[in-house]
């Protein structure tokens, strides 16, 4: 029915990976998208070398924002904060299986990565 809502994406939406709150997190951040009501609470822990060790999220929103968050929690493990900061829309689209997002859906897909960047900045890792 829709190219956008491919099976891989729907699986992440219906059964999100790393859903919940990480205890004793190094990064703990909340980000909202007021124009569509999407919210995300993201927690992350870094390993001794300063790389992302584990990310968890909770929140509610559309398929795109929630699937992107779920996929991000898997994709960023092992990355440095600088590598996370360098992630752009193109990288998120690749991470989501080569999706091409329409202009109106870009901010949905970027909610999680922007939350992680914000959290890394606020915790002094960036």
């Amino acid at each position: 029915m829709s190219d956008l809502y491919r099976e891989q994406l729907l699986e992440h939406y219906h059964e999100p990976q790393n859903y919940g709150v990480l205890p004793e997190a190094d990064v703990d951040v909340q980000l909202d998208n007021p124009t569509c009501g999407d919210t995300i609470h993201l927690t992350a822990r870094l390993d001794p070398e300063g790389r992302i060790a584990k990310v968890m999220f909770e929140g509610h929103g559309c398929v795109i924002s929630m699937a992107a968050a779920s996929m991000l929690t898997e994709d960023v493990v092992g990355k440095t904060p600088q590598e996370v900061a360098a992630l752009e829309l193109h990288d998120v689209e690749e991470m989501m299986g080569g999706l091409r997002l329409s202009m109106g859906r870009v901010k949905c897909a970027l909610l999680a990565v922007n939350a992680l960047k914000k959290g890394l900045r606020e915790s002094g890792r960036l």
Partner: protein
Amino acid sequence: MTWNLEELRREFPILQQQVHGKRLVFLDSAASAQKPRAVIEALTTVYTTAYANVHRGLYSLAEAATAHYEEAREKIAHFIGASDPGELIYVRNATEALNLVAYAWGRKHITAGDRIVITEMEHHSNLVPWMMLAQERGAELAYLPVTAAGELELTALPPLLADGRTRVVAFTLMSNVLGTIPPAQELTAMAHAAGALVVADGAQAVPHLPVNVQTLGVDFLAFSGHKLGGPGIGALWGRRRLLEAMPPFLFGGDMILSVKKHSATWNELPYKFEAGTPAIAEAVGFGVAVDFLSALGMEAVQQHEQMLVAYALERLPEVPGLHILGPTHPHRGGAVSFWLEGIHPHDIASVLDSEGICIRAGLHCAEPLHARFGLPASARASFFIYNGTDDVDALVAGLQGVVKLLRR
């Protein structure tokens, strides 16, 4: 008696295309309506035969452009029941019309301790200008509540009018979210009895039902041309004595009578409020759009859309977990908002798009109204003259598909 839908659709070139290999089902006319061929051709005609700046040139081409521009003004004024075209000011859109009133009338008349009454169902364009004015002047902004059924809580108005502090009551003639048609004559009579002016937002009502400023008795009416099939332009109608007492909104060319180094005097109505080169071809197209609707008849337009609303209200509940916002009787406008349990409105719109169906998803520029219903967003299908029951059928089938795809 309405029209032959297939014949009418052929007058709208954009509807002839396919989207993602499907027939285009356009259900977002409340945001902006599609344009009939007559309007599109009128723009071309202006630019190819009669374009020059208006009110300035002494050559015949400029006189022709001015004549077309002013003839359109007369048609638009007549369309809303105004007898004096000088009371009809061209603006960019209904938003600018409402800002004009809030600035030019509001800054002159609203002072500390005054009250401005609006409603919870206002579009941001009939809300934020009043909010800003109230903050600037130390005035109170009060809201007429919306009931759970999506109607205005009329009993809340008399207490807001009782102390004589209310200077203006501003409300929509048709909610762009709920489709609700407030009792405008009743509200106007109550406001006037308390010495308050009435500002009506006609952005949704003017394209979809007969609106007559004389019958309604309102003091200002804001509406847009692009929502009734015209180009990107709008209009403000106001009572001459009020407009004459107001200072200009924008300053510059054409709105001026005489300028000295340290003083200026203003042009007569309506030019006092039309600073700078206006949207000339768009104004002509606005007039043609009004002709197009007048030929169909606004009673027939309303009857057609009420038929569609009745059919949509009957069929939409077939979709499991669908909830309709606003009145569930058909005596309402053709903006039908709804939400689906467990599915974000953006996903509804994206999936429907793949079926060639255009709907709106989000807050529809009415955030306080969504907060009133505890919703982060909603989906909206809205009807116009070119929609038919086949569009409602496509919408319902599309929504069934959305549920099948996204709900587990």
